[in-house]
């Protein structure tokens, strides 16, 4: 066994050393740069290969790094498709001219308008709702209403937040800027910072754990983190609250994809993209990470359904990209670390 491995890799090494190994191009193959990790994307690729016979080759990395890589490789990039876990990086890729507009009736039918680029350069594949989670022993749902309400002084010392360095919070604030303008948004963020019970946390799960432990009462997280945590420890006194239902709706972000400008297998890449928005793949998106499918025909995971339905903010997620830099600056000014 080991010997087979060894000789196989020896051949691989030598061919790489000879500067050729990595870039043979096969006929039907799509190369993907994915910021979505293997575990959350490979099942969809496997299903695609099974259906079409087209193989999918991919590398995972930070979205920002993948962008830089695409840019540096330019015309010769091996990548046909870019997948990210937020709209901001897709928007940036499009701004840099790295993505190709795709005309596809299938995509337009499968994906709601506010979850794809108006210029058709990228498309949402799953929805990530950023919502409020609270401690059921200390907070009554009636006390909660909106994101901006968490800036109210009645939450002084009761709020936990993830760091502003995470793109999810940047998108949230960017969308707020687009809706309310800079001045009001900054006031809201300053209110949040004033209400913090402890320094911003490094991840959503940590924030929820602190809420459950009683260090703070309420936090803002992506719903699938709540799902994962509750799956592991169902007894935690935590519950989801869908904010802004009387207003414009819950802030949503997307995990999405676009076909690269210099794709070698553009046709196959478009087929993959369409497949990812299809019912089959959308079901996988729903299963694999407790996210919400973009395709309205597909129901989320039963556990997710149990959290109730909610109104999504219909503002196009493109704003998350356009205003991301602005959002970061705003949070820096407000002292939100």
């Amino acid at each position: 066994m080991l010997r087979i491995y060894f000789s196989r890799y020896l051949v691989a090494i030598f061919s790489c050393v000879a500067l050729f190994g990595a870039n043979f191009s096969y006929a039907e193959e799509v190369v993907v740069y994915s910021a979505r990790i293997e575990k959350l994307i490979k099942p969809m690729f496997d299903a695609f290969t099974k259906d079409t016979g087209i193989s999918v080759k991919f590398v995972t990395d930070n979205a920002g790094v993948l962008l830089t890589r695409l840019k540096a490789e330019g015309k010769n990039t091996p990548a046909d498709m870019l997948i990210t876990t937020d709209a901001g990086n897709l928007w940036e890729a499009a701004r840099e001219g790295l993505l190709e507009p795709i005309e596809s009736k299938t995509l337009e039918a499968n994906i709601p308008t506010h979850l794809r680029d108006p210029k058709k350069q990228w498309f949402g594949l799953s929805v990530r709702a950023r919502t409020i989670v609270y401690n059921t022993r200390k907070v009554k749902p009636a006390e909660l209403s909106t994101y901006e309400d968490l800036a109210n002084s009645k939450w002084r010392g009761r709020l936990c937040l993830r760091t502003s360095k995470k793109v999810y919070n940047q998108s949230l604030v960017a969308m707020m800027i687009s809706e309310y303008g800079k001045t009001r948004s900054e006031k809201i963020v300053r209110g949040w910072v004033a209400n913090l019970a402890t320094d911003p946390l490094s991840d959503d799960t940590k924030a929820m754990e602190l809420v459950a432990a009683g260090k703070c009462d309420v936090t803002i997280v992506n719903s699938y983190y709540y799902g994962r945590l509750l799956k592991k420890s169902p007894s935690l006194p935590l519950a989801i609250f869908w904010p802004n239902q009387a207003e414009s709706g819950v802030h949503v972000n997307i995990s999405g994809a676009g076909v690269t400008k210099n794709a070698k297998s553009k046709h196959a890449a478009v087929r993959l993209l369409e497949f990812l928005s299809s019912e089959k793949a959308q079901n996988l998106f729903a299963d694999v990470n407790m996210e919400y499918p973009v395709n309205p025909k597909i129901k989320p995971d039963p556990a997710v359904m149990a959290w109730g339905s909610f109104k999504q903010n219909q503002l196009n997620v493109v704003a998350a990209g356009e205003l991301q830099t602005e959002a970061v600056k705003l949070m820096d000014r407000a002292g939100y670390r």
Partner: protein
Amino acid sequence: MRGTLNVKSENRNTRDGFSHSSSYVFRVILSWRFIPVLVAVLVLVPVGTVILSFLTPAGGVWQHLVETILLRVLLNTFWLALGVAVCSALLGVSLAWFTAVYDFPGRNIFSWGLLLPLAIPAYVLAFVTLGLFDFTGPVQTSLRSWLGAELFWFPNVRSRMGVIVVMTLSFYPYVYLLARNAFLTQGKRSLEAAQSLGLNRTQGFLKVALPMARPWIASGVMLVSMETLADFGTVAVFNYDTLTTAIYKAWFSMFSLSAASQLASLLIVIVFALIVIEQQFRSRMRYAETKQSSRAPLIILTGWHSWVVAGFASATLFFAFLLPITQLFIWATHTFAEEFNQLYLGFLWHSLILSGLAALLICSVALLMVYSARRHPDMVTRIAVRIATIGYALPGVVLAVGIFIPIAWLDNWFSKMAMQLFSIETGLLIQGTLVVMLIAYMIRFLAVGHNPIDSAMQRITFNIDEAAMGLGLNGWSMLKRVHLPILKGGIFTAVTLVFVDVMKEMPVTLMTRPFGWDTLAVRIFEMTSEGEWEQAALPAVALVLAGLIPIALLTRQAEK
């Protein structure tokens, strides 16, 4: 390169001896001289790529950073680097001294066991420590339920002190390893001499052993400082803002590569300042011991002294290794069934082969550089060596991009040429090959390979060279028969450190790996980027276990 001619007779013996030997030797030496310069140029390419972006305007982003977070970030970075350097030095040197000179219960185990934390990536230690000791962790939770009260006295773990402690526990082995090496080989003679002059052991340690071990300690602390400055994972877990996190923010959140580069340039300036300080520590001292006195018997500690020392070593080992590895094991058993598959054999193999190849390459290059710097201790070589080892202090992701951009450019140029000249579609030839990956590792980790070998080289007096020349050895034969045996310990240390470091490395691996070349570190990255720390435990355990192999070899070698 013509510097040879300018060099005056500050080291008459070696230079004359060599240049007159034969033209062959002269040629070999000339080629040696090129090595540091060549490597320095290689390192300057990514650094230059980064600094060049300084010229493109960063617009409002830079201005914004200066106005809002820059000062805080700089202060944070300063205190963190200082704190980790001082604490690692104290911990590493004291443990090294105890295990090198004294006998106390468990000494044999501690002497190699205290190296084990090297195998645990700092960000993993950070997460585990935070998980255990933070407000929601089992320690505070149980204490609260026992005492039935809030623990106002419990120190805030997510604080500057917390980051310093975790990084110290993670990085002290660099100092420990090098200082111990120095203490073991510097011979007890000097300590006896100090005693015969009326100093007790403590005074002897402070006035003789410590100063004599200074180059080793300095290079260990230098490694620690560089690693601290470059770290992103650990500070991110603590949400502690440093220059490196600011670079990430400017680049990935504000889409301003130029602002990121300007911050990176600032970091490079700080590193150069550190290098100047380290040089001051070495000044004109030479640390050659003419003769290694036979290993003197260990001083046997008795009574409470021995238990204090044993307790100190145990506590370090416990918090830096046993506790985190136990936690990882527990998590790994939870996730094993779900997470383990045959891919892991591939991850493990990739990790091992990459680390092994990188260690060989880096240490060979480091050896050549050290050798060359010895033959030609002039300004050009010295500066070249310094530049060549700067990659370690740059955040991995900055360096990764700095490496990637010129390679992609070169690739595109090749491709264009091939198209114009032969009308062949070549695609990207260089990028995505192991060669690129290995060169990238070299640029990143040369300091880790260089420092131990360089310190060991300080041991070899020019008299030894002369003696060897008198016996008709020169050039390669002198390297092989005289220097390599003396440098063996240093080389082994270097190989181990590089091996383990490459295995833990993330950004360069992520960015330059060929398709399908996922390693254990890549796996950890994937899990942690989704916040799934428990899922990351399995690859982390595998990584730690794989890293233990060379460390075990190293300790066996060190004990010989």
